[in-house]
């Protein structure tokens, strides 16, 4: 009994460790592909994100802003919430801690990681930060329901909230032809870019129009943690997407299932890169219109799913 719990915890920690190790590599890959393939130049070396993180860790930490204690709290919370989601997401194996939580916890943790950005901007308190967090709030209001709708459709189909059924392609397991599953696949593909907060949807954070938005007052180690959380979001969301919509092949024997998972993550990262490098950033009203259309389609899918399709 105790051994089981210890194994579960170790499995969770192993997941976290893999996410921490690999996240900057995928960010570097994103920058290299943007540069070499699309912008016809020699980009940075592929390990550049590791260099950036180490350099930021060595800088001085200037505590400015309205509430330094809240700034520290928001920083640590952002990385912690993403890594906790990482413990619950299957990455090539079964989800290590799937007994510890269910799908509703997943929704709440993802919303929490979005709220950290709001806390960060409020704690900094400068004008640009407040503009950034108001845009982030609008984005979150229209985006998080999409994810919740997907989980609810999966739960409706299999009558359970357990993570190892929901994150195993349960959207396709409806009684009739899985129309709602296919609709949600399309909707989530279109909204994936906004969940991982890259161009064209990185309206709130790290943009040159409002001087980096809520992250403006953070320097040194805190900035390193925020950037790390953004890099880790890419991997964790890819894992969630794969678990929900393309889980086929994850029950192969140990090396092949794991390698297949990372190949799928690679393909998703390339899709994110190509979209990010070829598009310009949306204005907030254009983005809200886009998300509202997706939300309407999602609600239609939910109605279809509750009627058995």
């Amino acid at each position, binding site marked *: 009994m105790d051994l089981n719990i210890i194994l579960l915890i170790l499995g969770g920690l192993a997941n976290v460790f893999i996410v921490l190790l690999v996240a900057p590599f995928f960010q570097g890959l994103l920058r290299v592909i943007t540069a*070499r*393939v*699309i*912008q*016809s*130049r*020699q980009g940075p070396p592929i390990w550049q994100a590791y260099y950036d993180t180490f350099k930021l860790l060595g800088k001085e930490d200037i505590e400015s802003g309205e509430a330094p204690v809240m700034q520290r709290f928001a920083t640590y919370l952002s990385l912690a919430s993403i890594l906790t989601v990482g413990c619950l997401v299957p990455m090539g194996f079964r989800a290590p801690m799937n007994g510890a939580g269910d799908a509703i916890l997943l929704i709440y943790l993802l919303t929490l990681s979005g709220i950290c950005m709001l806390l960060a901007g409020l704690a900094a308190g400068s004008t640009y930060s407040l503009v950034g967090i108001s845009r982030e709030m609008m984005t979150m209001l229209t985006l998080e329901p999409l994810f919740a709708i997907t989980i609810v459709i999966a739960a409706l189909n299999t009558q359970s909230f357990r993570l190892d059924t929901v994150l195993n392609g349960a959207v396709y397991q409806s009684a009739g032809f899985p129309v709602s599953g296919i609709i949600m696949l399309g909707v989530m593909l279109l909204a994936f870019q906004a969940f991982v907060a890259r161009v064209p949807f990185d309206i709130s954070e790290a943009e040159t129009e409002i001087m980096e938005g809520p992250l403006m007052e953070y320097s040194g180690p805190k900035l390193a943690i925020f950037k790390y959380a953004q890099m880790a979001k890419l991997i964790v969301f890819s894992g969630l997407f794969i678990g929900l919509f393309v889980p086929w092949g994850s029950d192969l024997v140990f090396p092949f299932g794991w390698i297949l998972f990372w190949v799928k993550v690679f393909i998703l990262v390339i899709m994110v890169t*190509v*979209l990010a*490098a*070829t*598009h310009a950033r949306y204005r907030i009203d254009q983005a809200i219109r886009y998300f509202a259309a997706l939300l309407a389609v999602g609600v239609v899918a939910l109605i279809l799913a509750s009627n058995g399709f």
Partner: protein
Amino acid sequence: MSVMSKLKETLICLGAGKATLPYPFKAEPVPANFRGRPIFDSTKCIGCAGCANNCPAREILVYDPCQEVRVIKYLGRRCTYCGRCADLCPEKAITMSHEFENGTNAVTDISQTLDIFMSTCQRCGRCFKGAELMDDLKMKGYRFDDLQNDRWVFRSQAYLEGDQVVDDIKIEFEG
């Protein structure tokens, strides 16, 4: 849909390959009449100070420590590489070289100092002649720009009495 046009754009960009110059690792040639850093040739300079009088940024300072020696100092900080000094020089002692890699960590690295020996008149033995005979006894030289503080003195002819350095306009900034 606009995504299709963006993907077509990507495919077109792939044809361009890598357009980056491998710059600091491979030198690149400059155009033929490129104006880089001016090089002062001390063997040809006659000390007329025409370059100093015409520099629009007042970067060339002239100082006469005694009658026969003239120090011409080119400070590189404000030089805009306009080429006026090279155009004017009657002996073609200034050439605008092709050097543009002038970044340094100490701004005094770009300066060039020439000590020019002025020839004296065969009759009176002086380099410069004053308006009256008494002036000849007092006069040391014509130019006395401030070489210690790297400042151009806004007077062209005066006698050396006491402290000849003219102060700059004092501008204070608040805070």
